[in-house]
């Protein structure tokens, strides 16, 4: 995956976030504060603007611009979390012109680690960590499909939240899909899509 393709991936991700703005917020309503879609869409718009204004010339530059846009525009929990993920992406792609499968695998692992480092959440706490762990772990093994990603996202539904806003609900958080996992799902699915159609 080269810069052009990575840029396509990111654009597809941002378009997805904007298209599903209301849906993501709706997911955040029953177990959070109903703003995840607004937050992510705001970040997406800001990132797209930044990328248009000064188009990055390296993969590192691409991910760093996105990280800074998300950090300064998203707010909420997801801002610093996605910001940290993309900072890790930037680091993993430093001095790389294209990302081969091994680098890509490392990129997702580094993203997951950055996420867990920043948010201190572990597996099963009903956060986006619960899609990042299986995705990054299985990336190298199976040929992952969009259906696999959907299943990972759906698997957050029965979990009881113990991190993030949803934790205030205790047992009442059970039975709802985690909104951050859904938005991360868009990241993974747009990735698979761009990779498979290129």
């Amino acid at each position, binding site marked *: 995956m080269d810069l052009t393709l990575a840029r396509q991936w990111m654009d597809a991700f941002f378009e997805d976030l904007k298209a599903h703005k209301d849906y993501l*917020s709706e997911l955040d*309503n*029953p177990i*959070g*504060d*109903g*703003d995840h879609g*607004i*937050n992510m869409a*705001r970040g997406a718009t800001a990132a797209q603007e930044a990328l248009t204004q000064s188009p990055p010339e390296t993969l590192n530059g691409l991910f760093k611009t996105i990280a800074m846009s998300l*950090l*300064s*525009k*998203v*707010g*909420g*929990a*997801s*801002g*610093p*979390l996605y*910001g940290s993920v993309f900072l890790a992406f930037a680091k993993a792609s430093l001095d790389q012109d294209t990302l081969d499968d091994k680098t890509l695998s490392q990129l997702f692992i580094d993203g997951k680690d950055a996420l867990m480092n*920043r*948010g201190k959440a572990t597996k099963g706490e009903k956060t986006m960590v619960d899609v990042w762990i299986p995705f990054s772990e299985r990336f190298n093994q199976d040929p992952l499909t969009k259906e696999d990603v959907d299943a990972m996202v759906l698997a957050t539904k029965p979990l009881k939240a*113990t*991190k*993030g*806003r949803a*934790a*205030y*609900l*205790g047992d*009442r958080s059970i039975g709802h899909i985690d909104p951050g996992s859904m938005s991360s799902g868009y990241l993974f699915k747009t990735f698979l899509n761009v990779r498979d159609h290129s």
Partner: protein
Amino acid sequence: MKKILNAPSDVVEEMMNGMAEAHKDLVHRVGNTRVIARNYAGKGKVGIISGGGSGHEPTHAGYVGKGMLSAAIFGDVFTSPTPDQVYEAIKAADQGAGVFMVVKNYTGDVLNFEMAKDLAEADGIDVAYTVTSDDVSGGESTYSDGRRGVAGTLFMHKILGYHAEHGATLKDLKEIAEAINPNLATIGLALSPATVPEQGTPGFTLKDDEIELGIGIHGEPGFEKASMMTSKKIAAVFYDKLNAHLKLTGEEELVVMVNGMGATPLMEQYVFVKDVFDLLKDKGITVAKSYVGDYMTSIEMAGLSLTFFKLDDARWLDALNAPVETIAW
């Protein structure tokens, strides 16, 4: 949604400008940032900052001024502020002795303030912080995210602001903050929801005779939906929840705050505080000071919260009683 606004997406900007201009004798907006800082500098003293999502007015900017906060950061409505903006507040508040951050326990707030601290430290500004978690609606949660920071946080602002003004160091303030936090307990309820302007629809719904007990200041669901009950009954339910956390013996002195959530009139708040006083009198507990009013709101949510602050240290009361020069304290 019926609100007095122009574009919903401009609400925070416009509110900040209105606030800064209406109270220009006390505060100013820092450039184009999301920061309102006090005019009084407090040279050589530690700056205290706080912030969070907007929609809790007069929190936080209403408490910016001599003797309380040095600066406040405005996130979008009900959304944590971003690290770059928190960093702007740190820079505005730093008068050479470092900056102390009062963060309410929300994942988003904690993460964004921590990132700002990283940024500031990279630039050589000393930063320390405390995380308030006075909401007891989740019971004695074992996981750290279970207890939110709510209205009790304001006592933290006031007492730390007082000590900063009197020359306390970052280390002193951290110690004071850690002594205070376990003595704060708050519980709230909602009668009707709030609407985030950019969302346009209420964050939750309640039936005509239904209330939500243990609600958060962003409309996060509480521990129980219940039928409407009398003020006396609510006071009793709340007392039990707060007591479960503070384990009151009857010997202690309390500071009491009844905090309106936005749409609940003072009329109801004063009826309620009287029921709380009566209950405390029955238990032999002394009320050293009390606050009633809209201190930390949830836009136009109807409801209120009750905070007990156990005066483990008599100096805390002196700090509360000291005058400040703010918009809303």
